[in-house]
């Protein structure tokens, strides 16, 4: 036999009179419910009907003034009795003015929902923080060049070893870097997002394993057996959370790794959420010091302050600069508390503006609701005057108004939570950025909504309460009409003015922000992206161990693409114009300074780019400097290089040449993986793989002395390397630095 909705039935059992009276009503409802369920009809309609009846009965019995004392319930305290009476009054008012009440609820629900979405962003940045145990003791170490071009640069492997060995204030010193690697399964490969970390990394972060163990110090020693630690997400999605995953073998690249554990899901925050597998990072002192590709975290020893650790590392950095001037001169070490890593240096400004916008939104909503409540209070002046004449004190009347507001805001909050959840789902579906997928509605957001539900009624009940307190009830009672006076009041005018002012502020700020974004996107870059399709292909070391093999496969892929009907030009590039990976390396120019000065006077930006020979002619590319010639023809599959010059500043005096560099030769692991499985790993990757024209970042990056780069210097060839590939590229480009420096000098 079909059962009615249990929650609705429970609600009825709590609201209806006790004893056989209430039970018989419930029995009547069940009898009619079963009659509706007859004939094999679907249960949706009867259940909906039952809920409808339950809610209507609840509303009726809650608002029905009790004519007889409840015999079976104990006598309540006067305060509870007054509270119940106010609640009944509020429910009666809701029934009596459903239009106004619904408008108030919808207004508050939309405002609280929107504010909750905004709070979810701030919560992710401010309160969730990084997956670190006791973050006040954890610091991140950066390499910063003295000219300020990089304030949070990465650290080279040998420098990391020196800092680790010489520091007396830090413990659990660890480094890691992120990249990609090929997982080989049954002869097929798929790309994994991998983080290579030293053995102390998880102990520095204070994060345990949920299965097996994390990386240990012995794992990153030379000759140690290769082990891997899975991320919790990868373990769940790819291995269905099987406990026998620990101990299995994985072929990653050319080596077979043994899975030794699964790391806690608490690690999956920010970029760390993208990592599939953690592998040990082996660092040797023989590496290049100018290849700065490691992130560096450590814990302060007990009793050590942040300032003393920063001073010690600065001293070590100065010693290294003296010891290795070619690679370390001009670089200093910078210690940053890991809690400050979320966002940039001025991230708090963004968050503050965000929270300010939320506050404005709530202020507008409460002003609007306050206006509505005041109108209703004015219309109820006679009713309230009668209550005052019967002995109700003004405090009691104000309390009634507040309780009415609380009831409305509670309903609005209950609607705001699903509205906010829906909004976050829409945002996540529209944006490929992983940060939007980490926005959730959890205890923090529920607390925020509850706080707003408590705060809003207090705010929007103030103005009506003040109006009531100032009203002469005798005049109201003496006035004609049963609904009280509707004469205009100063409080309402103030509310309207405040509401309009707040709305204008918010709209102005929003329109300015939108205008800025639109202008950034409208900045001409010279990129003709019409009819350009973009995709990313990867080769891997396992399938193409030799560079020539990967190069041949890349060329074969290009030729195959050029034969596809409808394809006009197919070309490949290691880095995107504007969006590609690039780094900045200072080069002191000690010769031909007059020519450099002439160059600076003629153009702030000196740009060259090298793509596949001959390909740019098909596009009508006009070189700013130089012509395509045999030298270019000999270059195959080279990247883009842009040279920027500016005067030496910040007190140095000598002209400096700043070179934005990109790799000439792409590493094999980011080359196309022809003939293999090119399917995106997940929907998120699929979205990320599509072309992105992030002109905002480009405009900020290309600028020199505050001016944007000439758009004609930049053209699209092939777009669409993923961010991971760019990061990977950034980590490898330092190996060609000396050769490029020579070339740049020749160009000058």
């Amino acid at each position, binding site marked *: *036999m079909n059962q009615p909705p249990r929650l609705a039935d429970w609600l009825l059992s709590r609201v209806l*009179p006790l004893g*056989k*009276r209430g*039970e*018989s*009503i*419930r*029995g*009547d*409802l*069940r*009898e*009619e419910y*079963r*009659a509706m369920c007859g004939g094999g009809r679907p249960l949706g309609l009867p259940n909906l009907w039952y809920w409808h*009846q339950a809610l*209507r*009965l609840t*509303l*009726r*019995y809650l608002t*029905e003034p009790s*004519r*007889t004392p409840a015999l079976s319930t104990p006598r309540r305290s006067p305060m509870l009795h007054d509270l119940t009476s106010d609640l009944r009054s509020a429910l009666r008012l809701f029934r009596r003015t459903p239009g106004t009440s619904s408008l108030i609820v919808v207004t508050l629900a939309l405002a609280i929902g929107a504010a909750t979405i905004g709070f979810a962003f701030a919560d992710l940045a401010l309160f969730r923080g990084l997956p670190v145990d006791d973050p006040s003791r954890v610091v991140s170490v950066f390499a910063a060049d003295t000219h300020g071009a990089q304030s949070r640069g990465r650290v080279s492997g040998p420098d990391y070893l020196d800092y680790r060995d010489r520091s007396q204030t830090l413990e659990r010193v660890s480094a890691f870097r992120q990249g990609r690697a090929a997982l080989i399964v049954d002869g097929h490969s798929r790309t994994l997002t991998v983080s290579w970390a030293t053995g102390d990394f998880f102990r520095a972060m204070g994060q345990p394993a949920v299965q097996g163990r994390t990386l240990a110090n012995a794992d990153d020693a030379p000759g140690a057996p290769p082990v891997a630690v899975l991320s919790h997400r990868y373990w769940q999605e790819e291995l269905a959370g099987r406990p026998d995953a620990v101990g299995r073998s994985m072929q990653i690249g050319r080596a077979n790794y043994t899975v030794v554990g699964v790391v806690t899901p608490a690690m999956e925050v920010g970029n760390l959420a993208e990592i599939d597998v953690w592998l040990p990072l082996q660092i040797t002192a023989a590496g290049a010091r100018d290849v700065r590709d490691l992130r560096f975290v450590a814990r302060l020893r007990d009793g050590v302050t942040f300032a003393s650790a920063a001073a010690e590392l600065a001293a070590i950095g100065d010693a290294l600069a003296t010891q290795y001037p070619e690679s370390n001169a001009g670089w200093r070490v910078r210690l940053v508390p890991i809690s400050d890593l979320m966002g940039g240096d001025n991230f708090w400004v963004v968050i503050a503006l965000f929270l300010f916008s939320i506050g404005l939104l709530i202020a507008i909503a409460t002003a609007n609701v306050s206006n509505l409540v005041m109108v209703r209070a004015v219309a109820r002046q006679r009713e309230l005057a009668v209550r005052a004449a019967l002995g109700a004190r003004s405090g009691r009347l104000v309390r009634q108004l507040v309780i009415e507001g609380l009831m409305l805001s509670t309903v609005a909050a209950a609607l705001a939570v699903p509205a906010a959840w829906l909004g976050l789902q829409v945002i996540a579906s529209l944006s490929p950025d992983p940060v939007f997928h980490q926005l959730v509605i959890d205890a923090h957001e529920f607390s925020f909504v509850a706080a707003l539900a408590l705060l809003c009624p207090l705010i929007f009940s103030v103005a009506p309460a003040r109006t009531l307190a100032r009203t002469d009830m005798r005049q109201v009672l003496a006035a004609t009409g049963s609904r009280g006076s509707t004469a205009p009041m100063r409080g309402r005018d103030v509310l309207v003015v405040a509401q309009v002012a707040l709305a204008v502020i918010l709209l102005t700020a929003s329109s300015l922000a939108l205008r800025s974004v639109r202008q950034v996107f409208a900045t001409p870059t010279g990129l003709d992206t019409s009819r350009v399709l973009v995709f990313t292909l990867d080769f891997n070391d396992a399938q193409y161990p030799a560079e020539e093999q990967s190069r041949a496969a890349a060329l074969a892929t290009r030729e195959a693409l050029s034969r596809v009907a409808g394809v006009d030009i197919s070309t490949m590039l290691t880095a995107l114009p504007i969006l590609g990976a690039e780094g900045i390396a200072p080069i002191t120019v000690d010769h031909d300074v007059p020519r450099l000065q002439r160059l600076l006077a003629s153009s702030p930006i000196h740009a060259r780019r090298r793509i596949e020979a001959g390909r740019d002619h098909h596009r009508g590319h006009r070189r700013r400097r130089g012509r395509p010639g045999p030298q270019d023809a000999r270059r195959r599959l080279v990247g883009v290089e842009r040279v920027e010059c500016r005067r030496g500043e910040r007190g140095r005096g000598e002209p400096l040449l700043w070179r934005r560099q990109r790799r000439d030769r792409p590493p094999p692991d980011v080359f196309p993986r022809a003939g293999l499985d090119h399917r995106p790993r997940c929907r998120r990757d699929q979205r990320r793989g599509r072309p992105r024209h992030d002109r905002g970042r480009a405009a900020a990056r290309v600028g020199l002395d505050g001016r944007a780069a000439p758009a004609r210097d930049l053209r699209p060839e092939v777009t669409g390397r993923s961010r991971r590939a760019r990061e990977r590229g950034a980590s490898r480009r330092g190996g060609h630095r000396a050769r490029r420096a020579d070339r740049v000098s020749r160009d000058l």
Partner: protein
Amino acid sequence: MGGRNFLGEFEQRVLLAILRCGDGAHPIEVRREVMRATGHEPSRGAFYTTLDRLDAKQLVRWTTEAGAEKRDGLPQRTFVVTPEGLRALRASRKALLELWSGLDGILSEQ
């Protein structure tokens, strides 16, 4: 008729429906009878609270019997109109007829 037992319009309808249902004046049937006679479906909330109000005024009396399986054993009430209820109905009818009388010229349908 004392002021205490003054009948509202809906109360009169419910009392009359109980009388028309006879011995089987269960709430479901009474409500159905009200709906049939007036062409308007009263809400259950208004109907049950009116029954409670009539009970409080001692104009109706109810007894319970064990519920059937379709009611999951929940009791079923059967209502009867008390003598006070009958008196109130008579008084109300009389008052209304007094008020109606002599107005046929105005209220009769053309």
